[in-house]
């Protein structure tokens, strides 16, 4: 202490005023300034906290939340599409999709990402711009193994952290366009679809059915995407994972198609243009439906590139068109059974009525030829042989006697001129001419001469293969027309009941039996042991709207039609084949025969091996020709 006191004393001596109590008071002003400064510092600090914690803490808690929780979608698989036996037609395959997290996207990264993944930069940038609202944007589906390796090694925080792989489902369609038109395809929802009311609960970037069953039953097939939340720390370690919402897979869709028949029909149509439709006339179930040329829907699944699309859409043969429901072609001679039926029902002819065919006839100042004109006609010919030999002159006369309106009345009963109402989008309405129709369409009177060619399925009358199959099928089961459908309904929907005279129907069917089994025009469709009935048709292209005026149209040959059903006594199946440019109806009959054979072979197979599956259930009404007049549901 000595030193201290010494110092102190010394200081006191030298500068007494500086150590005196009063002198230190002089400094109090400065101390006060320091106090105010302290207050200012603390106010400054508190205000900073105020700004962060009280004024807008939501911004920061959101930021903290985003810091740690990364949410990614769990994509739901679409339902499969099955055939009537439960065999898978359209499947899903697990794959990876690449998505970009919007809040991490850096525009300058995009060219490099596009280059590495072989994407078109312009398209990619456009897509990112378009999907402004989506937190995540799927930019590539079905990422290949190479790309996965590239993505996973470039996802680090310094390179392209916006990339993220998620498990996705790739739609898998049969190869070679099998049943492509029926199945349709899926694609990214378009701007215009998004704005339409039926897609209210869809979002940008969703995959939806674009055509066929995929579109018709989109609600059933599509599942609901889930969400996964991952707790991430600052190193990118995923600490915890929770499924905020599980994905709900779409429901499978069981169709009435029979893959056996479909396969045979597809094979039979290979290399041809046209369509095949097989129906169960007793219920309207579609067993097979083929349209050729076809396309590969696998190319379309998900996000199709522009080039692929253009290639298919600009094909002159229009592979995208479903000829089975969209072709509008003259039915040709396949219409004759309905002319005959109308004649019998109205009484203008009976089963004994005979006409003379010299190879042609004149009506209203025009000469109408029979197809056997060069061979000198059919001579004297009855109804049965008229149908069997497809004598044009016979039906000219019947049509002449009927007049167009009575003919149209029965044709419309069979479904001509109406949509069938099948559960597929974009079915086309065809034409059944009548005086009313002409007045409505052209503001002109009907000329009686026009009736003559309608009687043999030419002229203004058009039909699609499906319509023809439904019409003939309804006739075959005694005049009850069921609505064709692809997805099994609890009970078949009867569109129209004819209440026809069963004898008249029998007469027409007998004529069609003759077509196949008595050396008629359809003799190539005959099957051993099964009484096949049928009718050929060779339709001129005069009314072919599709090709009229195109270059192809001028070089086109006649379309070949064949309608066949079997067995004669209780028809179970009706098959229509359209062979575009097939020249003559019998060209199409081979196709029908193969399909019918496939049907009956399968039936035999299952009768012998019932344990295989309960595939073809015995259908109820056996007394087909006098059904208890089911009520028309219209």
């Amino acid at each position: 202490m000595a030193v201290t006191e010494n110092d102190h004393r010394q200081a006191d001596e030298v500068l007494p005023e500086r150590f005196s109590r009063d002198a230190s008071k002089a400094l109090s002003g400065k101390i006060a300034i320091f106090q105010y400064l302290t207050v200012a510092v603390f106010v400054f600090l508190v205000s900073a906290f105020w700004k962060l914690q009280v004024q807008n803490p939501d911004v920061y808690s959101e930021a903290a939340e985003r810091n740690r929780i990364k949410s990614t979608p769990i994509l739901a698989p679409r339902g499969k599409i099955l055939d009537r036996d439960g065999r898978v037609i359209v499947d899903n395959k697990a794959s990876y999709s690449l998505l970009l997290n919007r809040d991490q996207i850096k525009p300058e990264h995009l060219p490099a990402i596009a280059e590495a993944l072989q994407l078109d930069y312009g398209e990619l940038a456009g897509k990112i711009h378009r999907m402004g609202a989506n937190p995540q944007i799927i930019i590539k589906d079905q990422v290949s193994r190479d790309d996965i390796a590239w993505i996973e090694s470039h996802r680090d925080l310094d390179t392209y952290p916006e990339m993220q792989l998620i498990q996705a489902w790739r739609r898998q369609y049969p190869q070679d366009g099998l049943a492509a038109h029926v199945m349709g395809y899926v694609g990214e929802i378009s701007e215009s679809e998004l704005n339409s009311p039926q897609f209210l609960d869809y979002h940008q970037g969703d995959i939806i059915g674009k055509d066929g069953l995929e579109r018709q039953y989109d609600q059933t097939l599509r599942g609901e995407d889930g969400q996964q939340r991952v707790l991430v720390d600052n190193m990118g370690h995923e600490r915890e994972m929770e499924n905020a919402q599980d994905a709900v897979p779409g429901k499978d869709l069981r169709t009435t198609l029979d893959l056996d028949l479909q396969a045979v029909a597809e094979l039979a149509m290979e290399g041809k243009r046209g369509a095949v439709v097989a129906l169960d006339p007793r219920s309207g179930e579609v067993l097979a439906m083929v349209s050729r040329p076809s396309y590969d829907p696998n190319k379309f699944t998900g996000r199709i590139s522009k080039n692929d699309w253009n290639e298919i859409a600009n094909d002159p043969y229009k592979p995208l068109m479903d000829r089975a429901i969209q072709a509008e072609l003259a039915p040709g001679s396949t219409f004759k059974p309905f002319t005959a039926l109308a004649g019998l029902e109205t009484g203008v002819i009976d089963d004994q009525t005979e006409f003379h065919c010299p190879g042609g006839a004149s009506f209203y100042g025009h000469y109408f030829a029979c197809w056997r004109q060069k061979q000198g006609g059919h001579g004297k010919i009855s109804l049965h042989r008229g149908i069997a030999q497809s004598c044009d002159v016979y039906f000219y006369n019947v049509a002449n006697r009927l007049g167009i309106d009575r003919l149209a009345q029965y044709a419309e009963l069979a479904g001509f001129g109406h949509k069938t109402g099948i559960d597929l989008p974009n079915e086309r309405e065809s034409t059944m001419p009548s005086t009313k129709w002409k007045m409505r369409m052209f503001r002109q009177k009907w000329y009686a001469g026009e009736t003559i060619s309608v009687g043999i399925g030419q002229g203004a009358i058009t039909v699609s293969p499906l319509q023809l199959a439904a019409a003939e099928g309804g006739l075959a089961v005694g005049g009850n027309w069921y609505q064709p459908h692809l997805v099994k309904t609890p009970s078949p929907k009867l569109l129209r009941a004819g209440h026809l005279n069963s004898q008249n129907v029998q007469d027409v069917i007998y004529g069609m039996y003759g077509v196949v089994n008595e050396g008629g025009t359809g003799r190539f469709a005959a099957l051993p042991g099964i009484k096949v009935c049928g009718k050929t048709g060779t339709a001129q292209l005069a009314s072919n709207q599709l090709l009229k005026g195109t270059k192809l149209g001028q070089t086109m040959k006649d379309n070949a039609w064949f309608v066949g059903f079997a067995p004669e006594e209780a028809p179970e199946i009706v098959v229509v084949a359209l062979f575009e440019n097939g020249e003559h109806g019998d060209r199409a009959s081979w196709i029908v025969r193969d399909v019918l054979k496939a049907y009956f072979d399968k039936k035999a197979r299952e009768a012998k091996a019932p344990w295989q599956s309960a595939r073809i259930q015995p259908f109820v009404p056996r007394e087909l020709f006098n059904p208890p007049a089911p009520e028309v549901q219209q």
Partner: protein
Amino acid sequence: MEALLGRFRTLTVLLIVIVAQLLYLAYQVKTNRDERLIRVWAVTAVTPMAGIVEAIRQNTIGFMRDYFILLDVRDQNRRLLAENKELRMDNIYFRNQLLTAEHARALVLFQAQSPSKTIAARVIGNSTVATAKAVFIDRGSTSGIEKGMAVVTPEGVIGKVVSVYPLVSQVLLVTDPTFKVGVESQKGHIHGLLDCGRGKCVVEQIQNEEKVDPGERFFTSGEDRIFPRGFPVGTVVSVQPGQGMKDVKLELSGTPGAAEEVLVVLQGVHQSIPVAPVVDETTAKMLPPPPPEADGKTAPAAKPQTEADKVLQKYDTLGKEEGHVYGAIGSTVPNFNAKPAAESKPPAQAAESEPAPATKPPVPTLTAPAPQPSVNTGPALPLGAPRRKPPPPAEPKTPAAEQPPPQ
């Protein structure tokens, strides 16, 4: 505290009063609701007087009221708009920022020599963040290093360059959880992804069906377009089947964390080394995709099939065996219930029946069920065909029912 109370009493009281009000204010702002109770008290207290005033006011200048309300609303609207704008700006600002983790920076430089295709570099430091899986090397853009280049040692892979400074580069190690490497096994050429995120190194994306044995070595596959193909990666320690994918544990042959001398792969050193050391931080260097593999393993990658395809194939082969061309003019009636004869059918017979099926009259007599000798054999059946032996009577019947087709 007596000193505080005495000497700074006023200051302390001031502080307390203000802090109390501030906290109360904060509470209101935070809960964002009007303080009903106090306002109700206050309003009740002044109501009598206000009532009188109000009555006078209403009788005299009632119309002014609307005017003021409107003013107030407009003012409020403007304030809210301004506030909204500011909040939105804040929002965008923070959204743009939360991206990535701590960088470190270079320490000292070191000298090393450079061979032709690779360039040797020395690890000079760890990242400043203790948990970061990154190191610095003493080579930078002046040595031709670019972002995205691979870093290896003769023993195994190390990492990739993630940021380049003129004299130093930062290397992200393969042990970083965000970094995966495309790898390929030595024997089976099985491809997978190396992931060392969770302490242990595993190879992902290997199907359960594929064959990988412990002890097998893995090499880089080149698919990641960072590491050239064929660099050693590690040796398999254990293999276990997992859910869908195999659980393959790997021991790295390199020592990413402890390596001291490394090689940076200057792919394309034969090209001119970029002169401008402008570090393009946005895009990373990328190798071209690896050439298609020589072992042709990818070739037989069967097209994905659904059952529909199988049915179609079945009918196709059936038709071919019977010599039937579907839908063709003049073709014979097919028999779909015949078994697709695979091996038991004598080829001679098949050849015999094949040529000109259409020209040959359908002579098959009742005694000629010869074309179906394969009924009893059980070849590999396609899907959808009867699994059990179909009852034999089917065969004799069919030819019996056959009629000559009408000509």
